[in-house]
């Protein structure tokens, strides 16, 4: 087999096949560590906050939020776009990097895909509750009904979004589960307790690793990657069309689809890095998630961060050049208006901060990457806040100009979704193999 000598090995520490199984199965087969319990408890508390604030929203009504007729989309849609964007890194790693034959993805694709799924769960909460009457949440679906055949409007990007997000969630789940089957079978065959034998046996679906199954499995995985790639690009494109097809200055631009997709990958990689740096440290996976992996991911951050930065500047230049005073005002207002602090936070976090990754030291120092990854997460949240709130709060009619500040309920729901996200992630880390064992076993001798 060809190996490139200038490259570092993908898995360090001279692991054997059996070592991979042992290392990955250890958290599943042993009692959770104190750090797991600590993290899980904090996540559950935040999750309860989510349940509480959502219950209050439903009980009292949408008036518990500060959204109003000018700023009709506030923290809710900001958070929706934020979470959907986070999800994109998972699909990028597992699908697009599979098509590009980037083998370093193999150690991180499982956790990144899990992150995708949990992030989309979090995202789905916001539009659902923003509709006000959450028990009528099935109305956007094209179902036969008794309202005089009042069908959904296929000309509306909001409906496209319903289709895009639900397809994205279900296809990601299928892709993730398919990848899990051989690993669940590994856990099944090592299981000693009855419950574990039953449940892992149930979900392994009788997988025994026959050459015939593997042959089909690899083809199916490749095709799924092939269709997930345009899917992931379409999802954030459609999310951006929620804005771009309107006539609001600051939203009505054709640059939105590529700009949103780049932003989504950028923010997703920020979150992947945040999670993996913690997981790698807590679970001792330094041999699997090496500094090579971190370096590769920081390069993606640098690239997509620069694309996003370029988009900010392009948007501004086009507004200035357009000769359209409302568009010009929208951008001047972003930079120097009452929300200028949010705009400059965004510019610093997304355009400036990632540029440190031009330095090799920055790309290979875990604690430093961790800080930057947090900054990226913050910056991308502010990007959506800036796009949504600053474009809405001063519209064509100065008499309806308002300021928008979130209430504790809105803040609580946002913090609560982190609870949901991390509760799911901690459970995932306890019950399922965090690293794709079958794939990693194919590359333990590789350099590439």
């Amino acid at each position, binding site marked *: 087999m060809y190996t490139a000598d200038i490259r570092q090995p993908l898995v360090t520490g001279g692991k054997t*096949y059996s070592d991979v199984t042992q290392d990955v199965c250890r958290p599943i087969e042993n009692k959770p560590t104190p750090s797991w319990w600590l993290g899980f408890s904090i996540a559950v508390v935040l999750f309860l906050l989510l349940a509480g604030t959502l219950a209050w929203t439903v009980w009292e009504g949408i008036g518990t939020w500060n959204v109003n007729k000018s700023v009709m989309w506030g923290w809710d849609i900001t958070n929706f776009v934020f979470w959907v964007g986070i999800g994109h890194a998972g699909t990028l790693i597992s699908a697009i990097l599979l098509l590009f034959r980037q083998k370093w993805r193999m150690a991180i694709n499982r956790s990144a895909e899990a992150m995708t799924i949990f992030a989309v769960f979090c995202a789905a909460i916001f539009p659902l509750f923003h509709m006000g009457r959450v028990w009528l949440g099935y109305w956007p679906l094209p179902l036969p009904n008794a309202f005089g055949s009042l069908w959904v409007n296929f000309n509306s990007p909001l409906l496209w979004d319903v289709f895009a997000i639900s*397809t994205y969630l279900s296809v990601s789940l299928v892709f993730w589960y398919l990848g899990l089957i051989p690993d669940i079978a590994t856990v099944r065959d090592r299981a000693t307790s009855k419950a574990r*034998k*039953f449940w892992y*046996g149930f979900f392994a679906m009788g997988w025994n690793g*026959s050459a015939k199954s593997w042959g*089909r499995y690899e*083809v199916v995985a490749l095709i799924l990657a092939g269709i997930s790639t345009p899917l992931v690009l379409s999802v954030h494109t459609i999310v951006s069309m929620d804005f771009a097809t309107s006539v609001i200055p600051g939203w009505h631009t054709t640059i939105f689809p590529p700009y949103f997709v780049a932003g989504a990958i950028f923010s997703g990689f920020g979150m992947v890095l945040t999670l993996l740096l913690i997981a790698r440290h807590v679970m001792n996976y330094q041999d699997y998630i090496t500094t090579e992996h971190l370096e590769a991911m920081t390069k993606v951050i640098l690239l997509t961060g620069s694309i996003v930065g370029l988009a900010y500047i392009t948007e501004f230049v086009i507004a200035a050049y357009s000769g359209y005073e409302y568009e010009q005002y929208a951008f001047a207002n972003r930079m120097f208006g009452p929300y200028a602090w949010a705009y400059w936070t965004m510019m610093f976090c997304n355009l400036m901060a990632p540029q440190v990754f031009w330095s090799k030291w920055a790309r290979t120092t875990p604690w430093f990457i961790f800080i930057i990854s947090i900054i990226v997460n913050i910056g991308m949240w502010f990007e959506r806040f800036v796009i949504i709130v600053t474009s809405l709060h001063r519209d064509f009619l100065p008499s309806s100009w308002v300021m928008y500040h979130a209430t504790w309920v809105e803040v609580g729901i946002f913090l609560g979704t982190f609870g949901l996200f991390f509760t799911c992630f901690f459970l995932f880390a306890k019950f399922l193999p965090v690293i794709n064992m079958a794939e990693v076993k194919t590359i333990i001798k590789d350099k590439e």
Partner: protein
Amino acid sequence: MIDKSILLDNKKFTVGIFDNSDKLLHAVKTLKEKGVKIFDCYTPFPVHHLDQALGYHRTNLTVGAFLCGMLGCLSGFTLAFYMNVVDWPMIIGGKPQDISVFTSFIPVMFELTILFTAFGMVIMFFARTRLIHGIKEDLLSRRQTDDHMVLAIDNNEEQAISNEDIVALLTKEGAIEVNASKEAFNTSLTSEEDLAKILNPASTKSKKK
């Protein structure tokens, strides 16, 4: 050939267990050259070129996936066209509701194409590979999903060379364990004690190199 019938048939297998995928691949090639019919191989990870060495054809699942995708695309168009043009056209924002707004049906058609392809293909894959919730898994080694690779030869099948020769050949090819008569077992549906009973008589008969 049906993958999952071995347990039901109570077949006996000659198995060679390897701990190196290159040796397994070489053994398969050598046995094939001698005209030995191999039942299947079981590996913890995909071994490249093993399916070609075993003479398996590339799966036709892709054709099924394509058809599912076409169906999804058509469903998306039918859904949008029927609802917004045929059944109850609604004029929203002064936009026409006829075939001229076809372009705004594309996102839904696209998403449904992907959805149908993914689900159709994975369901076909599960059906074809007989992956069903709660099915008994047929294992020939408990470590075949961990670090051992199993080469299985059906004892009932007519072979070009004698059984002893096959065993000798497997040993020569570097198998760490060769067993001339092994039945499949399952771990998840058997208690530990029963499993020990199944596994132990087999291990006494096995020849270790």
